């Protein structure tokens, strides 16, 4: 396995004054393995877009190290030639119609597949002759998705690609991504805050919150890493007293606790104590991790 992206000690802040300084990304360190679908998850404004802009040389790091395909991406034609990043808020020239985007993009992506692009235009029902400015939010997203998919770029970023897309189009995107990824493996980064929809597509998950990477784990490892323990308050409290709890709620005498790293023995113990176990989806896990203090939910998993 080789890492396509390697980041160490990466920070980005705006504004010079200490007081008014905005920290968009703080001390991030992670690696993205080749030919995987990575999820970059986090709330709006968590720093997802800034991070992707840093990785694609569109932003300049305040400090830290970025290696993409082994090199610094900033002003590096060798690296950028293999990267596609159509931002969610991508701006297009005023006089551009959809067809102009489709006509210019192939010159920038060596692996562009014309037939595939045409097919996608049809499937997503994008009006080719319409001005980019006149497109609906969903149609604009669809154009970004089409360029991202048809580019077949070795490192492709999808930035909140579902905005404005209806359920049918979203499913179409996920299905097409999976099918095309299977045939043409490449490194994909999917940035989203709709986690449940994509959680099964992901192989690796990064969760960013307030500019910090708080989870960096394989999706499989993460999925079993936390579980809701539900039952009488006393029993839940007794059971969780020496365990790592990500989140607690309660209603009258009932309590629920999201417990990290519960192994098979722990599960049996919980059942024996008369407690119910409920699955925690990736989305719930992220929500519970990002609203409380940051805890690594993968800590304590048996392995």
């Amino acid at each position, binding site marked *: 396995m080789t890492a396509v992206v390697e980041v160490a000690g990466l920070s980005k802040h705006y504004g010079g004054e200490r007081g008014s300084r905005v920290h968009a990304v703080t001390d991030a360190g992670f690696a993205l393995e080749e*030919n995987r679908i990575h999820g970059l998850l986090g709330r709006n404004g968590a720093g997802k877009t800034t991070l992707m802009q840093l990785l694609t040389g*569109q932003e300049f790091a305040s400090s830290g190290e970025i290696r993409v395909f082994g090199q610094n991406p900033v*002003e590096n*034609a060798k690296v950028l030639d293999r990267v596609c*990043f159509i931002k969610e808020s991508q701006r297009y020239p005023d006089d551009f*119609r959809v067809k102009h985007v489709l006509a210019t993009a192939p*010159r*920038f*992506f060596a692996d562009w597949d014309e037939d595939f692009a045409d097919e996608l235009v049809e499937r997503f029902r994008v009006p080719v002759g319409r001005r980019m400015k006149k497109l609906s939010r969903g149609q604009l997203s669809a154009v970004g998705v089409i360029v991202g998919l048809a580019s077949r770029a070795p490192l492709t970023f999808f930035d909140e690609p579902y905005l404005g897309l209806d359920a049918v189009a979203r499913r179409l995107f996920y299905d097409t991504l999976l099918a095309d990824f299977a045939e*043409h493996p490449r490194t994909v980064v999917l940035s989203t805050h709709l986690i449940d929809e994509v959680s099964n597509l992901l192989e690796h998950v990064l969760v960013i919150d307030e500019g910090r990477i708080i989870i960096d784990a394989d999706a499989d490892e993460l999925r079993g890493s936390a579980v809701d323990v539900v039952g009488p308050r006393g029993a839940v409290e007794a059971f969780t007293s020496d365990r790592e709890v990500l989140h607690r709620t309660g209603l009258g005498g009932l309590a629920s606790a999201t417990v990290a790293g519960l192994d098979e023995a722990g599960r049996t113990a919980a059942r024996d104590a008369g407690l119910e176990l409920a699955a925690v989806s990736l989305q719930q896990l992220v929500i519970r991790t990002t609203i409380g203090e940051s805890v690594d939910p993968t800590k304590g998993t048996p392995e």
Partner: protein
Amino acid sequence: MTTMTAVSAPRSAPSRVWRIVRLITANPTTTVVLPWAILGTIFLLNWLIWLLIFANVGAEGMTDAQEGIQWSGAAFYIFVYMLVLAVQAINLSFPLALGYGSTRREFSLGAGLTFVLLAAMYAVGMTVGAALENATGGWGLGGTFFRTIYFGGDQPWYLQLWIYFCWFLFFFFTGTIFASVYVRWKALGLIATFAVVGLAAVGVIALLTLSESWNMVWETIAHLGVVGSVSVLLIPSAVSALLGYLLLRRATTRG
């Protein structure tokens, strides 16, 4: 599970710059069709106005009127259009080019090349217009549209071509510098730049006036001649192009 991604050969440096030219000129309506169409319309209106003027002034006022028309600025519209075109091209193609994986350097070179090529194309068009104007005796009315004073009046075609070319470049790269300031520092930067440029202009004018050097300026221009004077425009154009690149080199696609 060790399927390798097929790696296509990287594009050559010239093609990486050329694709920026194609990006900026993707919609020829904006860069070619519309400017000529508008220029054609303005020309027609002018021609009709000449018809009216000459019908009314009679034979004795004719020479006066024809001389006055030499100072007509009707054709200037196309230069202003090119300035706006440059602003739009830099401001809106820049974020898309970066999204497509271009470097800022390639973008700057590509935009510069686009402007040089467009300047050449429009200079040729205007020169052809001037030649036709000459051949038809001012479109049958002794009118002046293409051969106005600013463009050297009557000149051999190659000098005419050069004069137009210099003017076009000047407008394109003036647009470039302001657009680059905007992309780099947004509205605030633009306001500051206008303030600085305005102050500098006032300062120069004041200096020339106080030192009573205006005569020297006019003499220099007269001495250089039209061809020499417009050639001097290449200096600010080149400086703008270079400054534009230096600004874009650290610009981001934010906002």
